[in-house]
């Protein structure tokens, strides 16, 4: 019965989504409404399904929710507060130690000075939500109609990454704000303000460093150096401020990183959009099909990290070349880098999907329109909704396959379009000289 409901709701939702997509293809130019419609439908479907499971069938986690374990709510925030409150994040007595970069720990240490209770968390979330909605309002609400407000409420409040961020209270919510600030100032030509925010983001979780490629593309070499310098400086300062001295903290920090990576057998495969997770889920599925039993140890060791890291590095290199030499539309550059940031790390939980709102914003503001925009829009919408139709093993759902696939499709389509549009636009094979100034103009939030 449960499987029937899961599969049934998935099929109904997907058929409706494709029906709406066909409608959108015919009508064109209703992008915000299309997004709102898909997000609304998905939310209603999942709310109904979760209600059926949790209230009618008394099923617990994971069937009762599309978010993480309810009893673990907000704990990405509270754990970090408890870890960092004594300014000893890597050697604390708490049941686990921080695996964040020094600046992130310093940030939580500062927050813990305000308080460690729920009101502080509420403030933390409200500040995030305030800037998030400010950004979405700019992108979504084009007129003062009530219909636009309805779309804003749907897209802003009912999307999966936003709800996941609230549920976990992860630092990514604020990282998203830092990146928003980077793009905001960058588009306005306030380059030093922009790189300050980028440096802070990099110093907190490293992976936003992918956006240095944008600076590289704009030939802002000095600014790249400054960003790296600031990121290093705040990291060193953070390390120096911790109890126990810098050397022991560095050793403890790398131990924590190692421990985090070694933990990821089944833990970390749920609500995950990483490519590494995707591969491990396939191993898991094949074990289930061929052996009938899933062995955690085999799943864990089935995909060695080193070859994966090398493969990812090569893929990253290819994509960077693509961005630097071939691609011209700004939203695509940003989308490409955002996908890299979400897809390539070995663990990448679903709250990171919130970053997709940045390229989405640029996409909605773009000036150049192509025939494939509707497909891009469909893929965007699929990345903003819960996809936990069927659970493969424990709380690992098909979403661990769907998100990476959608992102890979996105990348492939962009690569394909990058090449084909180039051919179409440049039949005489004249050299195209991208203008940095023009690039900025095409995609900025006015």
């Amino acid at each position, binding site marked *: 019965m449960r499987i029937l409901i899961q599969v049934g709701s998935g099929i109904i939702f997907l058929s409706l989504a494709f029906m*709406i997509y066909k*409608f*959108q293809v015919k*009508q064109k130019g*209703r992008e915000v*409404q*299309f997004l*709102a*419609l898909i997000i*609304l*439908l998905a939310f*209603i479907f999942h*709310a109904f399904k979760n*209600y059926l499971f*949790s*209230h*009618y069938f008394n099923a617990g986690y994971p069937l*009762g*929710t599309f978010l993480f374990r*309810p*009893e673990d*709510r907000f704990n990405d925030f509270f754990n970090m507060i408890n870890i960092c409150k004594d300014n000893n994040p890597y050697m604390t007595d708490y049941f686990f130690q921080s695996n964040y970069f020094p600046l992130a720990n310093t940030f939580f240490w500062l927050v813990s000075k305000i308080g460690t209770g*729920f009101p502080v968390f509420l403030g933390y979330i409200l500040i995030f939500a305030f800037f998030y909605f400010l950004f979405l309002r700019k992108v979504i609400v084009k007129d*003062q*109609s*009530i*219909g636009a*407000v*309805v*779309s804003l*409420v*749907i897209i802003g*409040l*009912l999307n999966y990454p936003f709800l996941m961020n609230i549920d976990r209270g992860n630092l990514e919510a604020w990282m998203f704000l830092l990146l928003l600030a980077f793009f905001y100032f960058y588009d306005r030509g306030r380059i030093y303000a922009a790189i300050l925010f980028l440096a802070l983001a990099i110093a907190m979780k490293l992976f936003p460093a992918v956006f240095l490629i944008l600076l590289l593309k704009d030939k802002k070499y000095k600014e790249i150096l400054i960003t790296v310098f600031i990121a290093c400086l705040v990291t060193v300062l953070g390390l120096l401020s911790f109890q126990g001295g810098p050397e022991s903290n560095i050793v403890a920090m790398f131990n924590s990183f190692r421990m985090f990576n070694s933990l990821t057998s089944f833990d970390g495969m749920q609500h995950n959009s990483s490519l590494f997770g995707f591969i491990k889920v396939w191993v898991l599925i094949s074990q289930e099909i061929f052996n009938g039993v899933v062995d955690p140890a085999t799943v864990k060791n089935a995909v060695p990290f080193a070859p994966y890291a090398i493969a990812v590095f090569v893929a990253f290199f290819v994509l960077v070349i693509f961005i630097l030499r071939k691609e011209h539309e700004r939203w695509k550059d940003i989308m490409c880098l955002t996908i890299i940031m979400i897809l390539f790390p070995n663990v990448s939980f679903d709250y990171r999907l919130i970053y997709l709102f940045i390229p989405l914003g640029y996409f909605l503001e773009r000036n150049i329109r192509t025939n494939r925009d509707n497909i891009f829009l469909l893929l965007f919408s699929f990345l903003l909704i819960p996809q936990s139709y069927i659970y493969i093993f424990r709380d690992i759902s098909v979403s661990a396959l769907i998100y990476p696939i959608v992102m890979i499709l996105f990348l492939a389509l962009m690569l394909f379009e990058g090449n084909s549009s180039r051919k179409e636009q440049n039949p005489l094979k004249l050299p195209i000289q991208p203008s940095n100034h023009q690039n900025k103009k095409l995609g900025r939030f006015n």
Partner: protein
Amino acid sequence: MNITIIQAVCFILFIAFTLLMYQMKIRRNDVDNDIFFISSIVLFGFTIATFRNYIFSQYLQLTYPLNTFLFIPSDRFNDFFSMLKVSSGSNPYGVGEKIGSSYFPVANSIMYIMNQIGSKYVSLMLLYVLFALVMGLFIKTMFGKKLTFENIPAFIIITFTTYPFLFNLDRGNIDMVVFMFLIGFFYFNDKGKTFLSILFLALAISMKLYPGVFLILLLKEKKYKEIAIVIVLSALLTLGSLLTFSGTMAENIQALLRNLGGFNQDFNSFYGLQHNLSLYGVVRVITFIMMTLIDGQVTHGVFAHAIPWYTLAVLVLFIAISAYILFSEQTKWKNITILTIVMLIFPNVSFDYRLIFLFIPLVYFFREGTDSKYRNLYLLLFSLLLIPHNYIYLYWDISTGVLIYPALMVMIIGLIFFEKIRKKSPLPPIQTN
């Protein structure tokens, strides 16, 4: 985390959003925004209620009533399943037994037919599909000729996320069938197909009696013959159904009256007050609050002799309202609204699934109410009737909804009267010599 704080925050958030939307609506006073206004209120009401229920049920592990705005989850679909069970044989009223159905004969016959499908879940699903289809088609008429891409989200919100719709799915009450029959009545009546329309009205009346209030509309149009036909048809359908039941007709009627008496007795105390929108419920809740405040305790059984008095009072009110409709009010949507509200708030027990009937006046309001000076206010009141209002629980699962829904409906009737009075007393003409 304090439950009351969460409830209060949700309530404040909802009120703030509603006021903001209302202000926007007043500022941009065009009819095109009406549908978006309603959908925005319904969407926000649904979202806030869903979030609150998620916090209570998943984060705080609280059970009924805090974990849902619907009825007890373990009792899901039981209005349907219980009736299906009772009507499975040919003795729905329990002749020779102690208990049985308290529905009218045609309702039992319809449940008997549904029973023939075999599986109770298949019957329920068929009913759901039919109900959703009729509901969707009916609501689509609010959107003019064609659904456009811009208003599909509004259509989905208004059709599938309203409290009355969800409550009907949760209970599976036969009022869904009555609602579909009434839509049939109005649809064919508008098309001028009188016989078909009165057939549907007769079916509705013979199922639950209270749709009989719509005979006032026929009376206003001086369709005396049609009224007679409706009454005869209803009587025939009822008799026809009674004849199919085991036992004599007299025995079945006696058993039905016994069951109805038992039903009313059941709802004489504070039982049945939850998810209720009857005026009698308001009286009972206010009495309950006063007892708690003054005596510090609740005495059950105080309503033992109240029903006849309440019935008399609503009968007088109904006569007065009917006279108003017959002799004073000329606007169709207002007449339908008044009669629908009468149908909802006057019975001594009227559960929230009946709010579904408000879609009928709402659709007529969209078609005809464009000239009203108070259009925005009507819109607001209608929208508020389509969302859950269980902000605070007064006692066990009796929430503020019990007071809010009747109050909103009385306000709509009051506004209709007020508008009439304002129209009747124009400024004195300026004398020019």
